[in-house]
C-alpha cells in the first residue's frame, strides 16, 4: 500500500485512520482554545460584581457558544480522534472499516463549526439561549442566527452518526483472529457502547432541532401551547438526547483511564469483566433517567420519584468502576508520570463530580440546587476533570507512540499541577456559590458572591494558561522531542499498540496479528 501523500492533499483526501485521527485531535484542540476563550470572557465579566466588559446579551451568547463548542467541537471530536487513531491498532485491524466515510465524518466538522461560530458576526448576534436551547427561548425569542445553528447541529449530527457507524463496523468486523469481545482493551469496549449511544440519540437531537425549525419558519406548534403543543416537550426530547450525550462524553474517558492506570500500576486492570458490564449498565440507565434535568419544571409526583430513584441507580455501576480503578492501584508498583497524574486526578475529581450528581438527583434537594452554580460546578467536575483531564492523559500516554518522540516530562508535570490547581480554584468555590443561591448564566451578581467569584476567575485564567503549556509541549515534542524508537514506551503497558515500533508505521496490521 502507498505511503502518505505530499502536502495538504494528504489531509484533505485522507483515508488513513491515523491521519484522520490526527485531524480530529488538532481540530478539537483548536475548538478547545476557541471555546476556552469564550470561557475567559465569561470569567473576566464575572471577576467583579456589576457589568464591566460585555453586554448581558453578549454574555448569554458566550455561555451558549462556550457550551456548544466545548461539547460538540472539543470533547466529542477529541474522543473520536482517539478512537480513530487507536481502535484499529488495539484490535489488530488494517484501518477503519469504511475509510472514505471516515474522511467525510471529519471534514463535515470544520464546515459545521464555521457556520456555528460565524453566527457571532450575524445580525442579531449568535445563539443566546444556552447550550440546552430550550424552547421558547430558542424558537419564539431566538435571534435569526438560530436557523444557522439548527443546520450546523444537523451537520454535526450527520458527522457523529457516520463516525459512530464506522466504529461499530470496525469493532464488530475487523478484529484480529483470536481477539474475542472479552479480550478487547477497555477503551475499545467503552467506545463500542458510546458509538451505540451516538447512533441512538443523535437522530433524536436531529428531530428536536427539526421541530424547532418547523416552529420558527413553518408555523407548527410543537413547542407552543397556543396550538396544543408544550414547551416542556422540548426539554423531554432534548434531555432524551442530552443524558446519553453526557455518557457519550464520559464513557471513552473511562476507557482511557482504564488503559493508563494498569500501565503505571504495573498490574492488570482489576475486574475487567465488571468494568464491561458496568459500562453497559450505565449506557442502559442513561436512556431512562433524562427528566432528572427538569425536576423543577412541574412534573407529576410519580415522575419525580421515578426519575429520582432511577438516577440514583447510576451510582452503583459508577461506583464499581471507581472501586476497580482504586483496587488496580492497590499494592501496585506505582510511578507518577504525567498520564498517571492526570488519571489519578480524574478518578479523584470525577468521583467528586459524581457525588454532587447524586446530590442533584435527589428531587427535593434539587429544588434548591436547580439552575444554580452548584450545577455548573457539578458538570465541570465531570466534563473538565472527567473528559478533558483524561484527554490530556491519553495525549501524553500515546504521543511518544504516535510521533516517536518523548514529551518533556517536567513540562508535562508542570502542566498537570497548574491545571489541577487552576481547575479546583475555578470550580470548587462554585459549589459554595450555588448553595448560597447564585444562579447560573447571569452576567452580574449580588455582592455577597464577590469573593468566591474572584477566586473562581483567577483559577480560570490559571487553567487557561495551563492549556498553552500543553500546546507548547505537544508542538515541542513533535519537532524537538527526544527520539524514541522502542516499542514499549512505558515498561509494562499492555495492548497491541505497544508491539509496534515508534513512531507508528503509516499502515499497521495489513495482515492481522494472531491473538492468543
Amino acid at each position, binding site marked *: 500500500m502507498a505511503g502518505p501523500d505530499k502536502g495538504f492533499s494528504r489531509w484533505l483526501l485522507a483515508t488513513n485512520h491515523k491521519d484522520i485521527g490526527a485531524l480530529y485531535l488538532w481540530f478539537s484542540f483548536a475548538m478547545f482554545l476557541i471555546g476556552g476563550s469564550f470561557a475567559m470572557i465569561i470569567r473576566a465579566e464575572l471577576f467583579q460584581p456589576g457589568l464591566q466588559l460585555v453586554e448581558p446579551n453578549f454574555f448569554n451568547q458566550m455561555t451558549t457558544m462556550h457550551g456548544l463548542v466545548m461539547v460538540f467541537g472539543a470533547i466529542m471530536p477529541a474522543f473520536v480522534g482517539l478512537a480513530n487513531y487507536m481502535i484499529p491498532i488495539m484490535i489488530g485491524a488494517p484501518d477503519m472499516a469504511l475509510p*472514505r466515510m471516515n474522511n467525510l465524518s471529519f471534514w463535515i466538522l470544520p464546515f459545521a463549526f464555521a457556520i456555528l461560530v460565524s453566527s457571532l458576526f450575524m445580525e442579531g448576534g449568535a445563539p443566546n439561549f444556552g447550550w440546552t436551547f430550550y424552547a421558547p427561548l430558542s424558537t419564539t425569542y431566538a435571534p435569526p442566527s438560530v436557523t444557522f445553528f439548527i443546520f450546523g447541529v444537523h451537520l454535526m449530527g450527520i458527522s457523529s452518526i457516520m463516525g459512530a457507524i464506522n466504529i461499530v463496523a470496525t469493532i464488530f468486523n*475487523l478484529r484480529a483472529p483470536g481477539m474475542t469481545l472479552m479480550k478487547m482493551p477497555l477503551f475499545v469496549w467503552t467506545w463500542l457502547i458510546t458509538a451505540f449511544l451516538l*447512533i441512538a440519540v443523535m*437522530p433524536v437531537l436531529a428531530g428536536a432541532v427539526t421541530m424547532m425549525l418547523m416552529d420558527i419558519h413553518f408555523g407548527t406548534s410543537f413547542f407552543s*401551547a397556543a*396550538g*396544543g403543543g408544550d414547551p416542556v416537550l422540548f426539554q423531554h426530547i432534548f434531555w432524551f438526547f442530552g443524558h446519553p450525550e453526557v455518557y457519550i462524553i464520559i464513557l471513552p474517558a473511562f476507557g482511557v483511564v482504564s488503559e493508563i492506570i494498569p500501565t503505571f500500576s504495573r498490574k492488570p486492570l482489576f475486574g475487567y469483566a465488571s468494568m464491561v458490564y458496568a459500562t453497559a449498565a450505565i449506557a442502559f440507565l442513561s436512556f431512562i433517567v433524562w427528566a432528572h434535568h427538569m425536576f423543577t419544571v412541574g412534573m407529576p409526583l410519580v415522575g419525580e420519584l421515578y426519575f429520582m430513584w432511577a438516577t440514583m441507580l447510576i451510582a452503583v455501576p459508577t461506583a464499581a468502576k471507581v472501586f476497580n480503578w482504586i483496587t488496580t492501584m492497590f499494592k501496585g508498583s506505582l510511578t507518577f508520570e504525567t498520564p498517571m497524574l492526570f488519571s489519578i486526578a480524574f478518578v479523584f475529581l470525577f468521583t467528586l463530580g459524581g457525588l454532587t450528581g447524586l446530590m442533584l438527583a435527589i428531587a427535593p434537594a434539587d429544588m434548591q440546587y436547580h439552575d444554580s452554580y452548584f450545577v455548573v460546578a457539578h458538570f465541570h467536575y465531570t466534563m473538565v476533570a472527567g473528559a478533558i483531564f483524561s484527554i490530556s492523559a491519553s495525549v501524553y500516554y500515546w504521543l511518544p507512540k504516535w510521533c516517536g518522540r518523548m514529551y518533556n516530562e517536567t513540562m508535562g508535570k508542570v502542566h498537570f499541577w497548574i491545571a489541577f490547581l487552576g481547575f479546583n480554584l475555578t470550580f470548587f468555590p462554585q459549589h459554595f456559590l450555588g448553595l448560597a443561591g447564585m444562579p447560573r448564566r447571569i452576567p452580574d451578581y449580588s455582592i455577597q458572591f464577590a469573593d468566591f467569584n474572584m477566586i473562581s476567575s483567577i483559577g480560570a485564567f490559571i487553567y487557561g494558561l495551563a492549556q498553552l503549556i500543553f500546546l507548547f509541549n505537544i508542538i515541542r515534542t513533535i519537532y524537538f522531542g527526544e527520539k524514541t524508537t522502542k516499542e514499549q514506551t512505558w515498561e509494562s503497558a499492555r495492548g497491541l499498540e505497544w508491539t509496534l515500533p515508534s513512531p507508528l508505521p503509516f499502515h499497521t496490521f495489513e495482515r492481522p496479528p494472531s491473538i492468543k
Partner: protein
Amino acid sequence: MAHKEDGATPRYYVPARSSMAIFSATALAMIALGAASGMNSMRAANASGGDWLLLYAGLIALAITLACWFSLTIRENLKGMNSEQLKVSYRIGMQWFIFSEVMFFAAFFGVLFYVRTLAGPWLSGDGAGVMNTLLWPGFDYAWPLMDTPQDAIGGVKEQAKAGFLANNGEHTGPARNMSFPGWENLLHWLPFWNTTLLVLSSIWLEFAHHSLKKGNRKGFNFWLALTLIFGFVFVYLQYLEYHEAYVDYGLYLNSGIYGATFFMLTGFHGFHVIMGAGILTVQFFRSIMKKHFTKEDHFGFEAASWYWHFVDVVWIFLVAVVYVY
C-alpha cells in the same frame, strides 16, 4: 465474528486517497448554508429566488458526488477488490444506519405520544396545573384536536390582546380531520389503499429477491418493476391525500399540534418512501442496463430492500397511531 484469516485470504481494501468525502462535505455545507439563509430571508419577507440558489447548487453537487461515489464502489466490487470481510462492513453499516433512522422517527412518535397522553389533558385542566384556568379557559382536549387552545380563547387576536403572542402566530384548528372514517367508508379512505399498496410492494420485493437468488433475471426485473410501480402510486396517493387535507379539510402545518404531527410524521415518511423508491429505481436500472447483481453478490439491492421494508414498517405504526387509534 472475528474473521478467519490465512495467507490466501485477500487483504482488506483500504483506498489510498479519496476526493469523494471533501466534495460531499462541501455540498452538505452548501445545503446547510443555502437552506438557512433562504429560510431566514423568507421569514424577513424580502425573499427572492436567488436566496435558494446555494441550496439548489448544494443539492445538485451532493447528488453528483454521491453518484460518483456509489459508482466507484460498484466498480471496485466488480473488479473483485472487495473481500468478503469488506462486504460485511457494508452490511453492518447499512443496518446501523437504519437503526439511526428508526430513532429519528421515534422522536416524532414520542412527541405524538406525549401530546396525546400528557400535554393535551394538562392543557384542558387535568392534573394539578393551572394552565387551563389562567391561560386557556374553555379549552377542552380531544384527539384529533379540532379546536386549539388559541381557538378556545377567541383566536389569535384575543391572545394578542392578552399580551402573549408567539411569533409563530396563528394556530386555527382544521375543519375536518384525517382519522379513520368507519368500516362502511373503508374503500373511500386513501390510507387503506396506501397501506395495501405499501404492504404488497414489500411482498413483491421479497419475490424479486427470491427470483434473484434463484438466478431468474427476468423474474427479478418483473417483481422489482412491480414494487416500484406500487411505490410510486403510493407517493401519488399521498399527494392526493395532502391535496385533500389542504383544500377540502383546512388542515395545514399551522393547524395546531394535530396538523403539525400529522404532516411531520406522514411527510418524513413520504420523503423516505421517495428516497427508498429512488434507491430501488437505481437498482432496477443497474439490473436491466448493466446486468449487475449475481445470485450471491447483490448487496446494493439487498440494502435498498432493507430500507424499503423499514419504511413499510414505519407506515404500519403510522397508520395505527396517526390515522386509526
